[in-house]
Every structure is written in structure tokens, then in C-alpha cells.
């Protein structure tokens, strides 16, 4: 029985965190945030060296052949660095191809995805988080029609995994005729969302009932991203409280400020184990995998909001300025909370899974 990450995993994560300190410095994040034309290609390219694009792709297709637990550790590092990288597609598209793609489809796409030369996105918002603004994609005779919203990395993707309104998955090429893409500006300036329009777009179906698995993985990854961002917000609050003086003493010596920091840590620390376990259960196909992925997402949604707000408060006025840039983490956590379902919706689903709701 070993409830911990391995030394290798720890090293991988630490190395990634250190590297992201350079690759995705606050200055770099700022530049990306301020320029919609900046696709963050340098950041993506630097991450290729870590094999990040191929993390979940089997070695035979040029990937690292690792598991969701590893991807989750990487997501934590990306969240820490508020890295301008869409990571959901890089994890979920391979899962879809491996689980439901033909040998042909796998051979066509996986090597390029593993190398990071092909970028992927997944469009699964409506069947998971609900249909808004008349969105939803219909599949008929190999053609997709309709629109789908909130596609992380959808603007630049060469390959898009699209869920239709029935929950079946389809592969769409980024250069397919009839496909349109539109930026959806969110509070989080570090990950761009897209609206995708389909006007009779050619698509290849994937086999099997894969959407639940994509959902589980996505929830664990978003939870991990928020976890990493929360850790940073707590660290920054503690550091600021030990440095900032008011009334002749560091504010971190005021009990109210100490307790705010303690409450953040107490909320977040147990979540780490939940996120790890959720990914492990996913990898091992354990019975409670779906439930734990859902709870990880819901827990971090709530804890994230608390930490984002409380850390900002500890920073006082500085916390709300752009000078410090704390808001990049605040907003990253805000998007992690809502994307693919807010806590209430995810919990409702957890209840359904256990037969507690109709």
C-alpha cells in the first residue's frame, strides 16, 4: 500500500515547475494575456521537450505512455505557472483516439499529437455542462451541424474531438470545410476558449461510449490545475504577510491574517490526496473513479473560490492590482471552477451516479 507519488513523478513535477518558471514567467504570461495574436507557440514548443503533448500516448505511437496521474501532476504544474497552454485537448484527444479510434485513425493522428506538431482540442461542453444559447452539434450522415461553446484550445487545434448531442464522439480536422471558430473572451487570459460552428462539416465517428471517460479525466485535470494555482496563491499570501508591515509589525503576525492563511491551507491540503486518488482510480479502473473525479472537480471549485478570494484579501489593495499579477491565478481558478460544470452541477451528477437523484 503506497499512497504517494513516486520519486520519478515528484522529480518530473518539480522539473516541470522549475522549467515553467522560465517558460511561463509572469512576464511571458502577461504578454500572452495582452495580445490575442500571441498563440504561445514558444511555450508549447518548450513543453514538447518534456514530452507533455505525448504524456498519455503509448510509446509505440511516440508518446511517453504515462497515465492520468502523471497528467494530473503536470496539470498542477501548469496551474502553478498559470501557463498559457491549453492542456485538456492534449490529454483528452489521445484518450479518445486510444479508446475509440480505429488503428488507422490512431496511426494517422497519435504520432503527430505525441510530437506536439498536431494540436488537439475537445468540444464536449454541452453534453456535460449543459446546453446554453442554443448550442449543440448534430451528426447526420457523417456531417456535423450546429455549434459548440467553451472549447479550450479550439482556436488553434488541428484536430477536434466533438461530442454530438447524443454524446457520441467525432473527429474533425482543423482545416475541414464548413468549420468556423470564434474567440470567446473569458476572465482567464491564460487559456483561450472558442466557439466552433459546424456547417455540414465532414467528421469521422469514434466508436464506443467514451464521453464519460473524457469527462472524468477532464474533471481531474481541471481540479489539478486549480490545485496548483491555489498552492501558489497560498504561498504568495504567506510570503506577502511576512513581508508587508502595517502598524509597526508584519501583517502575518496578526491573528486574523494567520487564520486566513491557515484556513486556506486546511481547505486545500486534503484536496491534494483526493486529486491524486481520483486519477489513480481512473488509471486502475476502480469502481469509485468517476465519483472521485467528480468530487475532485467540485471540491477544488469551492476551495478554489475561497482561496482566490482569501489570498487576495491577505494581499490587501495590492492583491487587486495588475502590478502584482495575482489576478492571473484568481481568474485561472475562476475558469477551472466553471469549465465543464460548476460544483453544483458536478455534485448533482455525483448524486445521480450513486442513484441518489433521478
Amino acid at each position, binding site marked *: 500500500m503506497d499512497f504517494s507519488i513516486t520519486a520519478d513523478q515528484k522529480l518530473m513535477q518539480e522539473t516541470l515547475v522549475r522549467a515553467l518558471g522560465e517558460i511561463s514567467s509572469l512576464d511571458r504570461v502577461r504578454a500572452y494575456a495582452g495580445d490575442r495574436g500571441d498563440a504561445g507557440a514558444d511555450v508549447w514548443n518548450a513543453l514538447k521537450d518534456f514530452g507533455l503533448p505525448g504524456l498519455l500516448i503509448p510509446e509505440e505511437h511516440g508518446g511517453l505512455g504515462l497515465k492520468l496521474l502523471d497528467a494530473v501532476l503536470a496539470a498542477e504544474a501548469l496551474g502553478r505557472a498559470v501557463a498559457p497552454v491549453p492542456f485538456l485537448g492534449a490529454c483528452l484527444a489521445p484518450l479518445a483516439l486510444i479508446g475509440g479510434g480505429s488503428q488507422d485513425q490512431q496511426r494517422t493522428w497519435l504520432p503527430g499529437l505525441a510530437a506536439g506538431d498536431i494540436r488537439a482540442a475537445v468540444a464536449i461542453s454541452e453534453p456535460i*455542462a449543459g446546453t446554453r444559447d442554443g448550442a449543440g452539434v448534430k451528426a447526420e450522415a457523417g456531417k456535423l451541424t450546429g455549434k459548440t461553446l467553451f472549447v479550450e484550445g479550439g482556436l488553434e487545434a488541428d484536430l477536434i474531438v466533438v461530442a454530438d448531442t447524443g454524446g457520441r464522439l467525432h473527429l474533425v480536422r482543423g482545416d475541414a470545410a464548413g468549420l468556423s471558430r470564434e474567440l470567446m*473572451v473569458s476572465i482567464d487570459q491564460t487559456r483561450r476558449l472558442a466557439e466552433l460552428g459546424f456547417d455540414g462539416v465532414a467528421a469521422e465517428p469514434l466508436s464506443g461510449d467514451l464521453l464519460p471517460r473524457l469527462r472524468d479525466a477532464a474533471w481531474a485535470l481541471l481540479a489539478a490545475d486549480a490545485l496548483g494555482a491555489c498552492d501558489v496563491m497560498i504561498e504568495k499570501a504567506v510570503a506577502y504577510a511576512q513581508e508587508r508591515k502595517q502598524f509597526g509589525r508584519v501583517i502575518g503576525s496578526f491573528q486574523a491574517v494567520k487564520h486566513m492563511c491557515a484556513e486556506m491551507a486546511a481547505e486545500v491540503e486534503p484536496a491534494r490526496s483526493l486529486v491524486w486518488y481520483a486519477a489513480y482510480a481512473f488509471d486502475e479502473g476502480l469502481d469509485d473513479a468517476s465519483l472521485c473525479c467528480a468530487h475532485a472537480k467540485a471540491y477544488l471549485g469551492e476551495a478554489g473560490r475561497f482561496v482566490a478570494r482569501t489570498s487576495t484579501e491577505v494581499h490587501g489593495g495590492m492583491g487587486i492590482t495588475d502590478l502584482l499579477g*495575482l489576478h492571473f491565478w*484568481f481568474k485561472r481558478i475562476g475558469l477551472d471552477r466553471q469549465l465543464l460544470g460548476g460544483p453544483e452541477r458536478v455534485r448533482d451528477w455525483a448524486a445521480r451516479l450513486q442513484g441518489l437523484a433521478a
Partner: protein
Amino acid sequence: MDLRLTPEMEAFRDEVRGFLEAHRDHYAPGAAADRPREAALAWQRLLIEHGYAARTIPKEYGGYGAQPDILKTRIIAEEFTRAGAPRGLANQGISMLVPTLLEVGSEEQKQAWIGKTLRGEVVWCQGYSEPGAGSDLASLQTKAVEDGDDFVISGQKIWTSTAAQADMIFCLVRTEPDAPKHDGISYLLFSMKTPGIEVRPLKTMTGSAEFNEVFFTDVRVPKSSVVLGRGKGWFVANATLKHERGMLGDPNATEARLHSLIELMKTETVDGRPLIADPVFRDRAMALQSKVLAMKFNGLRGLTASMRGEPAGMAGLVVKLQGCELNHQIAALAIDALGELGVLYEDGPHLRAKGSWQWNYMFDLGLIIGGGTAQIQKNIISERGLGMPREPKLAKA
């Protein structure tokens, strides 16, 4: 307990209503952060003339000269809201400097500034907070060194809204560096055109620059700029801060926000179902309604106390803490109920209410922090409201 209005007050209400109907063509808003345009200045003059702005400021200083009557003030506020009429100018000069000068200014200062400020001819900004002096404002370090008939000012201010548009600044500086910290501060009035002043916009998490930083390098102002006297600045500032606290946590605005939230939840749908049909979000909306109503009636109770010249007591002390939190929570629910749509911001066809829910969510967090953080508010409530001990003095390290 009698919330009915007297016939006199009903008549006053009719009068205000009549004015607003008659002058609909003159409506001209003057945004707080900008220099008012000519139409706004004209509207402001009209309002002062009829006593709907600067109502209780003496005529000799450019006001309307009415006796304070909180109920009439409230009726005016209600009728303007009802008619959708702009309230006239609202800026820190009018809300903070004017009351301060009335209280402690010299006759010359009153004559020089109050009228022009009321009419919007002079726009002010406030120079209080510094990077190192926030909650602990009295530790401010911007220094003003005596040189002949002048002070020479060096240092930095922060959180200065309207600094770029302002003609003048009311500013706290340290004139007596050797005095105990509360006794070494003076309150100065000087032109923002004075050489040596640099204004840099301060962008916040909302993405806009609602504030500025202001840098002073050897800024020379005459000693006659002092209000009340050298070393009296802390006293003067507290008179001003008192006026600021009253501005935060307006229960009518909060009620309007809740109303917008409920409208949003009735009209927006997910999976074809209105958001309000979700019992979890609905319950949260109702819990917020409990609090909004409580704050609304708490406000009426405070109003009655003010009308009688009684202190509002605990009912007054909790307004900032509870009011700001409530606004923040209303915005939070809107975001949550909107789901993924709730994260959209700035522009785009799917954006709701121009992104104002997210904007409010962030800006209200700033208000929770600004003007006395929630922690400072809790200190005040426990010390002044409940009579608990002040933070004890520390042993020297």
C-alpha cells in the same frame, strides 16, 4: 414604527416628481471618473438651483441652503432612481472635500473651492493611501519640507482615482517628521498642474485602471495650502473618512442588484430550463434576499436614527462589512448560475450584461478590501461596537 409619509412629504415627493418630468430633456449623467461635460455641468447647476444637489450646503458657498432633512434627501434619491434621472455630479471633491472644508476649512478656502467644486468647475482627487500606508494610514511617508513660504513635497500616493482628470488634489503629507506619527501630518490642497507631479494609471484585476499612482518630485506648493493647520492633517482626514464610509454599502443599490440577478435567473436557461428552476441556485438567491431585506430595513432604521440626531450604533457599524460582502455574493451567484457563460468577459456575442457580473465580482472584492479591509471592520465592530479591547501594544523586539 410608521413608514407612511406625512402630507408635507407626499407633497415634496410630487414636487420632485414634477421637476423630473418637466426636465427630462436636460438629463445628463456625469461619470464619477471623468471630467464632466458641459451638458452635465448644466444639469448640475439646474439641480443645485432646485435643491436636488448640494441641498444642505449654505447658499453663500454655492449650495441650495436647505436645512438638513434626511427624509427629503431620501425622497429625492428614490424619485431620481424611479425616473432613471442622473443624480448630478458625484465625485470625491463633492462627497469628501466639501464636507471637510465646511467643517474645518478657513473662510477663504470655503469661498475659493466649495462653489466651484459643487458646480463641477473644479475636479479633485484624493491623496491619502501610499504603498506603505494602507490600513495603517497614519504611517504615511510622503514628506513636505518647509522652504521659505512653500512646502516641497516628495513621495508617492496610490489608489488615487480621477487623478488624471483632476484639477486639484487634497493630500496628506508629513510636515513634522519628528512628531508622533499621528501629529506630524498636514492636509494640503494644491493644483495637479504643479510641476513635479506624475500620474500613472493603476490597472486592477478588472482590466481597467480605476485608480492611479501619483508621484511627487520636489513639488512646490505655498504654505497657505494647509487646511486647519500644520500637524492637524490626521484630524482633518478623519472628518473626511467619516464621509467616505457612508458612501459604501447602499442598500438600494444592493436591492437593485438582487433584482437583476433574479431577472437573469428567470430569463437565462440551461438545457432549456430557466436557471431559477434549479432549487440549489434558487435557495441561494432566497438566502441572499433574506440578507438584502435585512440590510434594507437596517438602513431605514439608521435613517430614522440620523433624522433624530441619534448615533446609528451597531446598525451603522456593520453596514460596510455586510453590504460589501452581500454585493460580492450576489455577483458570485450570478456567475455560478450562468455556469460556463459566467466566465465570459469583455466582449463577444455570448457575453451577458457586458460582463458586469464578473466585473462586480472583482470590483466588490476590491471594496471589501478598500476603505478599511474586512479585518479592520471587524476590529472596529468589536472595539467600538462591543467594547472589546484594542489590539494590545507589543513588547519591543
